[in-house]
């Protein structure tokens, strides 16, 4: 019997490594830094029915969106009487089919072995511009999706291996940067062709039926593991609420909520009590909300698990149609992450006090993305820089939060190195460091620091677009831990602050201006008065906090000359402060 167990396992290993190699194939050939530096893309291998078998690393956002995107698209094709053929590669970015926003271009390829559909390769990546009213195709000003770029509902880019030039021309005519978009789409397609070759090799060697069995085994393994892990979670209903800062034309901030119900066999995220979709680009479609729930589910169960669709079996999402978490056309979605990431954060917030060994306090949450577009005086080329930025994470029950890490749903994306920015764009990076000024949420364990990055603009007529959140409501603390700090972007002209905010479009910059991106610090865990004075002293020595903050927030008295802790006075002061707070 050993042969069968081991053969199935070897095939499962190969399937996982195919997905990983798809990932590297794309990185090495992509044209835009958002793919090759930031990794704002993910490939996946699905079974013939579109169920997730293996993922390459990349964006958790996409993990469960890839199979949903594929299944929705295939269903639409079937309704039109069309079916996938060997060598076809489909192009799709319609958020109402595929979730997220129009920038995320999806490619789907049926993987055949001798006329038998064995698997489906799917990949999704952010291209820097798909047309629309803003350079970079997203911004805070859109009120319906038609303003956000070209909508591609799942069409053949390749038909039986032949490039469909008409489709390509149509797509490229609708972007500000056709060269880059073409190169990136080809880099995504290269990953799918790689998968096709490997699936054929695999079936040649082990036989198609055995390969199919291995896929089934991978799904079952996921089901078994998630059931096992679900047992360990505390059963019950948990509630959380948050606010998203209002957009132009709104009277008040948007209240959002979740009820998480954990039962013996289900993990339900109920988004029933939420407002209708809004005339702003922050609506998310159902695939995104579902992906949020799966991200949170993986985080609370086992972040290291090798996921397959089976692992998500217990996850259920309830979100009424027409609400901000399940928008219907023509709602704008280009900044979908503002709600989608909140959906993760809400579930996280509801569960953190109950699953402290897995979850941290609130983090900076936003993508804190900016778009800077300009004509590069060095080569006269029109360029668009789009980048998600890292920030501070919340404290855990037993340690300080991580500093300068990308937001939860951004997962394995990387920040752009200064060298790449300066090489590719007319920008000088004058500062890239921890954001001490805005601080963190203090506590027995404190939040991690956000990032401060100053870009000196070296071109005329540059334009800034940004749409960030947590600009008024800071990351939450747990168990007496203090809230963290907010995200914002500052524009400095001649060393003076001329703008400080989170949402901008058509914002014209002058050559020499500084765009200073400042992400927030994470929330704290437990009362600051319980923090080990030695850790407070360490923070002072590192200049993370001032001596005054040590005294006023932590009740720790530190000698400004020697930086020694005055233990006696500290004890006394902490006692007084505790009584005062009671």
């Amino acid at each position, binding site marked *: *019997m*050993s*042969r069968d*167990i*081991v053969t199935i*396992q*070897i095939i*499962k*290993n*190969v399937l996982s*490594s195919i997905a990983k*190699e798809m990932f590297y*194939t794309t*990185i*090495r*050939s*992509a*044209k*835009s*830094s958002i793919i*090759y*530096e930031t990794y704002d893309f993910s490939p996946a291998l699905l079974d013939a029915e579109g169920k997730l078998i293996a993922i390459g*690393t990349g964006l958790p956002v996409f993990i469960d969106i890839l199979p949903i995107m594929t299944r929705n698209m295939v269903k639409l094709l079937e309704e039109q009487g069309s079916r996938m053929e060997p060598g076809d590669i489909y192009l799709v970015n319609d958020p109402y089919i595929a979730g997220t926003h129009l920038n995320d271009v999806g490619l789907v390829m049926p993987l055949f072995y001798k006329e038998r559909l064995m698997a489906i390769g799917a990949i999704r990546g952010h291209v820097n511009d798909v047309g629309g009213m803003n350079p970079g195709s997203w911004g805070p000003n859109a009120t319906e999706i038609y303003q956000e770029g070209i909508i591609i509902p799942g069409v053949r880019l390749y038909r039986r291996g032949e490039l469909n030039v008409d489709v390509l021309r149509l797509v490229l005519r609708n972007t500000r940067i056709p*060269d*880059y978009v*073409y*190169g990136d789409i*080809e*880099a995504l*397609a*290269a990953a799918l*062709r*790689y998968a096709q070759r490997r699936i054929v090799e695999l079936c040649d060697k082990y036989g198609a039926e055995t390969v199919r069995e291995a896929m089934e085994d991978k799904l079952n*393994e996921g089901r*078994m*593991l998630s059931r*096992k892990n679900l047992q360990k979670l505390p059963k019950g209903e948990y509630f959380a609420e948050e606010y998203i800062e209002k957009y132009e034309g709104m009277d008040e901030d948007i209240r959002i909520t979740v009820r998480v119900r954990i039962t013996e066999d289900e993990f339900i995220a109920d988004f029933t009590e939420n407002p209708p979709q809004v005339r702003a680009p922050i609506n998310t479609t159902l695939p995104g909300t579902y992906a949020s729930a799966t991200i949170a589910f993986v985080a609370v169960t*086992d972040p*290291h*698990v*090798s996921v397959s669709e089976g692992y998500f079996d217990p996850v259920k999402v309830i979100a009424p149609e027409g609400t901000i978490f399940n928008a219907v056309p023509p709602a704008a979605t280009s900044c979908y992450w503002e709600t989608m990431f909140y959906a993760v954060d809400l579930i996280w917030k509801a569960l953190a006090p109950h699953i402290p060994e897995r979850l941290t306090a609130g983090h900076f949450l936003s993508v804190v993305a900016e778009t800077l577009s300009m004509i590069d005086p060095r*080569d006269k080329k029109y360029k668009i820089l789009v980048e998600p930025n890292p920030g501070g994470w919340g404290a855990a029950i037993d340690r300080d939060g991580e500093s300068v890490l990308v937001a939860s749903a951004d997962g394995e994306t*990387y920040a752009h190195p200064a060298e*790449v920015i300066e*090489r*590719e764009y007319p920008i000088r990076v004058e500062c890239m460091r921890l954001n001490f000024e805005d601080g963190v949420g203090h506590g027995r364990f404190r939040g991690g620091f956000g990032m401060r990055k100053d870009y000196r603009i070296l071109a005329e007529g540059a334009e800034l677009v940004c749409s960030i959140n947590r600009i008024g409501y800071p990351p939450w603390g747990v168990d007496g831990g203090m809230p963290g700090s907010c995200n914002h972007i500052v524009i400095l002209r001649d060393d003076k602050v001329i703008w400080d905010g989170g949402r901008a479009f058509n914002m014209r910059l002058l050559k020499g201006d500084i765009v200073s991106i400042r992400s927030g610090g994470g929330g704290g865990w437990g009362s600051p008065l319980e923090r080990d004075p030695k850790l407070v002293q360490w923070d002072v020595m590192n200049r993370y906090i001032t001596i005054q903050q040590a005294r006023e927030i932590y009740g720790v008295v530190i000698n400004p000359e020697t930086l020694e802790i005055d233990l006696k006075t500290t004890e006394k002061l902490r006692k007084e402060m505790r009584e005062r707070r009671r």
Partner: protein
Amino acid sequence: MTLSAGGMVTSEYAKRYPIFTIEGGPISGIIGGIRLSSILGGKNIIVIDGGSTTTKAGLAKELTPKVYTEYWIEQDDWNAGYPLRVPTLDITEIGLGGTSLVWIDDAGNLRVGPQAAGARPGPACYGQGGDKPTLTDAYVLSGFLNPEYLLGGRLKVFKDLAHKAMSGIARQLNLDEKEASYGVVRLANDNAANLIRQISVKRGYDPREFTLIAHGGAGPMFAPFIAEELKIPEIVVPAIPSGVFNSWGMIGLDIRHELSLTDISSLKMDGAYAKYVGSRFEELESRVREMFKLEGVDPSSVVTERYLDIRYEGQAHTLKIPCYNGRLGIEHLKEAAEMFHKAHYKEYGFSLPESGMEIVGFHVVGIHKVKPPELSRISTTGSLNRASLGERTLFVDGSEFNVPIYKKESLPAGVVVEGPCIIEGDTATTVVTKNFKARHDDFGNIILTPNRR
């Protein structure tokens, strides 16, 4: 000291620029493979070094290894790692070796590595106090390794301890110890084959055109299975004892200095640009000659090679393209551009002939040839009978059968043995599967080729 890009420098130089020596050890193994292959008249080689905790592999087509400038250390699924922009021979490695631990994951899958028992406590069967099963224990239990001793008798093997260590795993899988062990061996072989696939197929090389040079304790154990999987037509197990093969590679490495210069410009097909490219190379060449002078090497004995790092506009990753070594004209730039399109197609399955190209860097390599050590010939006397150590029972694919065992050191030169058999040496065991035959050549290398019966 060995450089990451192959070649040798004085310790004084290495002290000043230690970064250029990273991964020097395993890289010596590739160089050793190239040396051995040039003696044997080989052409394309893949070198696999199966150690006790990791297995490393490298490739050299036309005996010329590829130099990359995008090497990452400590990067895996859970660690971001660090990029090192220094010229490094392309090697890959996995956490798999003789002391890799056998375990069962949460989903009930049998696994081997990347955790390892290391030298201490080592495999359970070494009797040094290790109680966790390792790949070596699996080899002993399935009959691939001698169940009584290793290292020509200097290391005693306790099969009963291996059996005991494997019993927990076997019970969980509902198998007996032999079946579980053979499963472990298959998984290890598959992981090793995957490593070779990464360094060959994934980079656009066809393994069927290569010879596999297998050294290290585990290398010759994996080799025939890798060769079957990837249809590699020839395996060489070097006569130089495993363990010192890397050092042998180091001795007599050519003295090598290289310089690269980052200078980004759009590739233009005109005379002025060709002249500019030429001048950048000449600049580097004169500096490279200076470096040789400092080490007391006559610069006139130095041969230089030129490479261009080229990419399509906007890309981050470059491909290294050799460039004509002389007065540059437009035709040489055209030639380089043509080679780039082809290399890009080979690497990624597409090229963008309409897209602009950029030269990102210039790379000059200077080589001063050093006379390598020679291999001595072994005795032709003796016979197969005298080398016979009897038979052992192997457990493969659910059934048991007996295979002959030979002592490597007693095999005369020129003898050919048919698989299946096992050749035990003082420092390594070579498995000859039923699909191969093994020839003991004049230098004492074991050469495996398919057994067409």
